[in-house]
């Protein structure tokens, strides 16, 4: 016995060692549960992070648009049934966009803004033609929001007035490469012949087939937006606040502000559903762990009732007996979580090594987050403690006479 360990600890550790098989099997049970929780948490976090990374790799956090054009019936005060047809939303400029840009950039939650003129055009080369979207940007500002140069697979992200950068799937569809010329025609009749300076991979096939980048002036000329911009891209510090910030901007500036959250509502609700399902599972696993520890300790109290009686006869207080069993619960929880963390870490490691597509890209990247393991340890210890309460009270309440008599 070490000198600094109090009586409760000595008794608790000896009792646990005495019932070695019991202790080990419950620790095994707890560790499996903790390992499952850790692995599922890491998978969920990885999935969320992965999704956000992919969505936001080609999309800004918030996009500001001119307010929607609304058709208003001319007759105001007479109540009458009318069918109002929503007008076609033309490519229009945002009023006073420079002022708006400056004001939004000054907001503390905003980290970058960039103007954009975009609209539908036809991209042609010889007989091949594709309907694409042209995005006219100012490279210096835009690359701070979407780092196009990082996504280049061929050529470079140079955007002088005669350059165009296209997605990799569009390049495949049209059969073009860096250096080739593309004919761009807008519905207004304006055309331009641009040289492909770079090909990018924006992370999803749909985007790679449709997005083409040109200089801001080039797009303005094509789309009839001289001096104007059709949208402003905004990056914020906390991506999860994007919708709140978007609403603030919309209210302050009178523009329409779409956050990535709203634009990807379906994905987001799928993620939310995942989180709920995952959390429910983890909760019930935790509950099972608690009941397992409680069961073991109840049996232990019954088995050790003579010893409890003797300790009480020797002058041990009810409080001391209580603490002996509470400690056992905490130790079982802690030991189980340490073993479970090891199991979980092993599972994550194996996943990182083996869960990959044939070309080597991972199904779902997972990271080691030390907070997950620390959190699991704390939670399991507290669970063990809570599970021990009922058995410990029972043990403390044992009548020594009855207990000793057996």
């Amino acid at each position, binding site marked *: 016995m070490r000198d600094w360990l109090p009586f409760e600890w000595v008794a608790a550790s000896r009792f646990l060692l005495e019932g070695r098989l019991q202790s080990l099997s419950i620790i095994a049970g707890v560790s499996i549960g903790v390992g499952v929780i850790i692995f599922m948490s890491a998978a969920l976090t990885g999935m969320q992070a992965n999704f956000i990374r992919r969505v936001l790799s080609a999309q800004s956090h918030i996009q500001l648009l001119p307010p929607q054009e609304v058709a208003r019936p001319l007759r105001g005060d007479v109540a009458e049934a009318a069918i109002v047809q929503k007008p076609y939303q033309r490519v229009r400029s945002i009023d006073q966009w420079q002022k708006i840009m400056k004001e939004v950039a000054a907001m503390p939650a905003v980290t970058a803004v960039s103007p954009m003129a975009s609209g539908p055009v036809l991209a042609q080369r010889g007989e091949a033609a594709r309907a694409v979207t042209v995005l006219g940007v100012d490279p210096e500002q835009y690359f701070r929001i979407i780092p196009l140069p990082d996504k280049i697979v061929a050529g470079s992200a140079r955007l002088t007035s005669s350059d165009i950068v296209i997605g990799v799937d569009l390049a495949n569809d049209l059969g073009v490469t860096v250096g080739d010329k593309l004919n761009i025609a807008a519905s207004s009749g304006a055309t331009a012949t641009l040289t492909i300076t770079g090909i990018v991979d924006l992370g999803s096939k749909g985007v790679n087939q449709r997005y083409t980048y040109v200089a801001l002036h080039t797009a303005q000329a094509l789309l009839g937006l001289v001096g104007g911009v059709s949208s402003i891209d905004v990056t914020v510090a906390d991506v999860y606040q994007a919708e709140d910030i978007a609403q603030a901007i919309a209210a302050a500036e009178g523009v329409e502000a779409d956050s990535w959250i709203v634009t990807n509502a379906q994905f987001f609700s799928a993620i939310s559903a995942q989180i709920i399902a995952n959390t429910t599972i983890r909760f019930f696993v935790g509950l099972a762990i608690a009941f397992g520890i409680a069961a073991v300790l109840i049996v232990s109290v019954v088995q050790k009732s003579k010893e409890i009686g003797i*300790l009480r006869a020797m002058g041990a207080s*009810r409080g001391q007996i209580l603490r002996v069993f509470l400690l056992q619960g905490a130790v079982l929880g802690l030991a189980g979580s340490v073993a479970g963390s090891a199991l979980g870490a092993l599972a994550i490691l194996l996943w990182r090594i083996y869960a990959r597509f044939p070309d080597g890209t991972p199904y779902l990247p997972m990271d080691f987050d030390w907070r997950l393991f620390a959190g699991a340890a704390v939670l399991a210890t507290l669970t063990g403690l809570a599970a021990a309460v009922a058995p410990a009270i029972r043990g403390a309440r044992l009548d020594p006479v009855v207990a000793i008599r057996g």
Partner: protein
Amino acid sequence: MRKAYNAGMPNEAEVLHGVDLALPRGEFCALMGPSGSGKSTLLNLVGLLDRPSGGRILIEDRDTTGLDDAAITRLRGHSIGFVFQYHHLLPAFTAVENVMMPMLVDRGRPDDEMRRRAAGLLESVRLTPWRDNLALNMSGGQQQRVAVARALAMSPALLLADEPTGNLDTQSAQGVFDLMREINRARGTTVLIVTHNHELARQCDRIVELVDGRLVGERRP
């Protein structure tokens, strides 16, 4: 100073009826009687493990009636030592650790003084070579001697033994008895021992007889 125990009629089934027993300090007293006569119950009452439904128990002239559970537990730990019929050592602990247990419970943390005292007690019961044996690795007689040493750990004024030799062979039984006798003489510890063994009872200072919950007589052998 005398130790006086005036036990009334305790417990649900009225096991004891009007028992009035006084043990003078330093007496070695045997409690005998047929099975079911309430000897264990009386012992438990004297040892403050149980409370009487009527009457009082005085330890060293101190009335225990009004004390709460915590106070009774403390008094028990400091003033009373128990030796049970089945050794009731803690099997997961060694002999010396078992002897240290009452002190550990009292003071909370082990220290050298406790260890020395425990070693000394083991020496006095002549079990020093077995001090680091786990309790379950010892013979019945040895375990009982450890139990006696443990009962003395807090230098109690009163030693209670409930058929301590019941499970032992004649030689071991006499050995344990002699041990308790020796302690009684050397330290003046009052001893109350429940026994069926007439041979051993004859070696006590006084024999008290309990039949159907009543003290029917006493004699000095």
